[in-house]
């Protein structure tokens, strides 16, 4: 198997701290290095997940972190893929390790997010679909999540109460996570009392924007053994697939879907194909998972992921939730970390943070939120413009 070892995992707590993304990334990197028991000088490659909202250093995140940690001549890579940036950074590190280019790689992602809605870069840019969807439609990210949520209500009979249950579940898990921004329980009544952002989604149905950082030290299995980590958590698959034409669900930031006139809709659809690619590479199926970390940009979207990951048949996500299967203590806990509901979104960090959580869970060191006997976990998200992302880790 083409496995790589997770030698170290580290995070900077999520929140609105008002500092530079470099500070969060550096803190997370130092924590990951300490966890791995190696020094920064031992790292021969650093991969930074980029952010577009922090100006020039954000674009060259790898070098920005390398400078902050102290120039030491390491190989450097910077990766940007919106919400999938972290997963593509992990994939890049893995490829370097498996090809023998590097034995041990530091992966870092961090962000200082602006308050309120994410917005495109400034200026008049009518050739940019992301700019156009704001200019012409006022279509914020939550507006897209709301279209998906309403569609689920029409197709599958989901209700706003089901959506609220996701928040209640994730807030309960997040309350047990010292890295989460929100660490208090939330009731269904509090969700229902929060203002509508984009019908049918309320403020507590959509994730906040946050500052945060996460880092991993990945290495070859041989390096791990030499280093005394004989049985580390391993990354067994990384999926970074694009959609297959025609994409028939309006994806961010598109103004229209592809036409299905010339070719019928692909099966499986995009999100499902992300999971399938990871399962295939890992030689695992949904029945093998102990837990999953998915992008709950909205509560409703988490239910969609249950189905796309094959945790239940299509349309039965709300049923799986209502049965308690995806809560801590359930058959297949989802977002044991508390999810984005508890963290908020720090774009380049979050996909890495998901793998940090899998690492701690698979080591059995997740404390009060530990999933008993966790052996295999999957992360899933998708990035703007059609970036797939899923990581499978095993112990």
């Amino acid at each position, binding site marked *: 198997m083409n496995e790589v070892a997770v030698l170290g995992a580290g995070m900077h707590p999520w929140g609105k701290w008002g500092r530079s993304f470099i500070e969060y990334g550096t803190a997370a990197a130092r924590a990951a290095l300490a966890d791995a028991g190696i020094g920064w000088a031992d790292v021969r490659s650093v991969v930074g997940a980029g952010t577009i909202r922090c100006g020039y250093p954000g674009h060259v995140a790898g070098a920005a972190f390398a400078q902050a940690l102290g120039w030491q001549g390491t190989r450097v890579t910077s990766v940007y893929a919106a919400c999938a940036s972290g997963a593509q950074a992990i994939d890049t590190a893995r490829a370097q390790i498996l090809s023998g280019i590097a034995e041990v790689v530091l992966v870092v992602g961090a962000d200082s997010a602006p308050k309120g809605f994410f917005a495109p870069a400034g200026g008049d840019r009518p050739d940019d679909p992301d700019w156009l969807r704001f200019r012409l439609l006022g279509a914020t990210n939550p507006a897209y999540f709301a279209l998906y949520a309403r569609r689920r209500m029409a197709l599958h009979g989901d209700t706003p109460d089901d959506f609220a249950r996701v928040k209640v579940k994730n807030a309960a898990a997040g309350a047990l996570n010292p890295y989460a921004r929100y660490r208090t329980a939330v009731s269904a009544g509090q969700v229902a009392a929060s203002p509508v952002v984009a*019908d049918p989604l309320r403020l507590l149905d959509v994730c906040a924007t946050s500052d945060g950082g996460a880092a991993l030290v990945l290495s070859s299995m041989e390096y791990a053994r030499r280093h005394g980590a004989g049985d580390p958590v391993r990354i067994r698959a990384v999926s970074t697939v694009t959609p297959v034409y025609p994409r028939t669900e309006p994806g961010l930031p598109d103004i229209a879907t592809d036409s299905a006139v010339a070719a019928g809709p692909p099966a499986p659809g995009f999100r499902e194909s992300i999971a399938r690619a990871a399962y295939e590479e890992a030689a695992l199926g949904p029945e093998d998972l102990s837990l999953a970390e998915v992008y709950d940009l909205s509560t409703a979207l988490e239910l969609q992921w249950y189905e796309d990951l094959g945790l239940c048949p299509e349309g039965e996500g709300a049923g799986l939730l209502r049965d308690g299967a995806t809560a801590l203590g359930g058959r297949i806990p989802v977002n044991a970390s508390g999810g984005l509901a508890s963290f908020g979104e720090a774009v380049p960090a979050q996909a890495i943070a998901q793998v940090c959580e899998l690492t701690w869970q698979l080591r059995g060191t997740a404390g009060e939120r530990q999933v008993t006997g966790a052996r295999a976990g999957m992360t899933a998200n998708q990035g703007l413009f059609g970036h797939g992302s899923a990581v499978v880790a095993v112990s």
Partner: protein
Amino acid sequence: MVAGWFTKSDDEEGFRLLGTRCGACSAVFFPREDALCRNPACAGGVLTEVALSKRGRVWSYTDGRYRPPAPYVSDPESGWQPYTLLAVELAAERMVVLGQAVPGVTVADLSVGTEVEVVPGILSEDADTVWTTWQWRPVEEER
């Protein structure tokens, strides 16, 4: 701002969204694709302008209760009036096209499957310019 995305006509009856169609595989593109057909199975054909269906059915809908950030144009001095956003399925083109609803239509007026038609509308205006756009309007029951 988006040249060639819809007809210039102010006449509601004649107003259409404009896309392009591939001469080889018949794929339709909106917003218009003038360079290359994006169907990976297509050897590549000439893309010609095509008017999209005037009517479609609501695939989903929502609204914006908070003021969107720039470059959306709205007067920060005036109170925020939520807009309604529709995703509309066009049967002939087998595609979903987003657009705002005409002013006055709220989510309470809609359901998935509601028939709507495309009409010209005003995106924003200042002293010198009126920016037109497309909007979706529920089709009145025909008697």
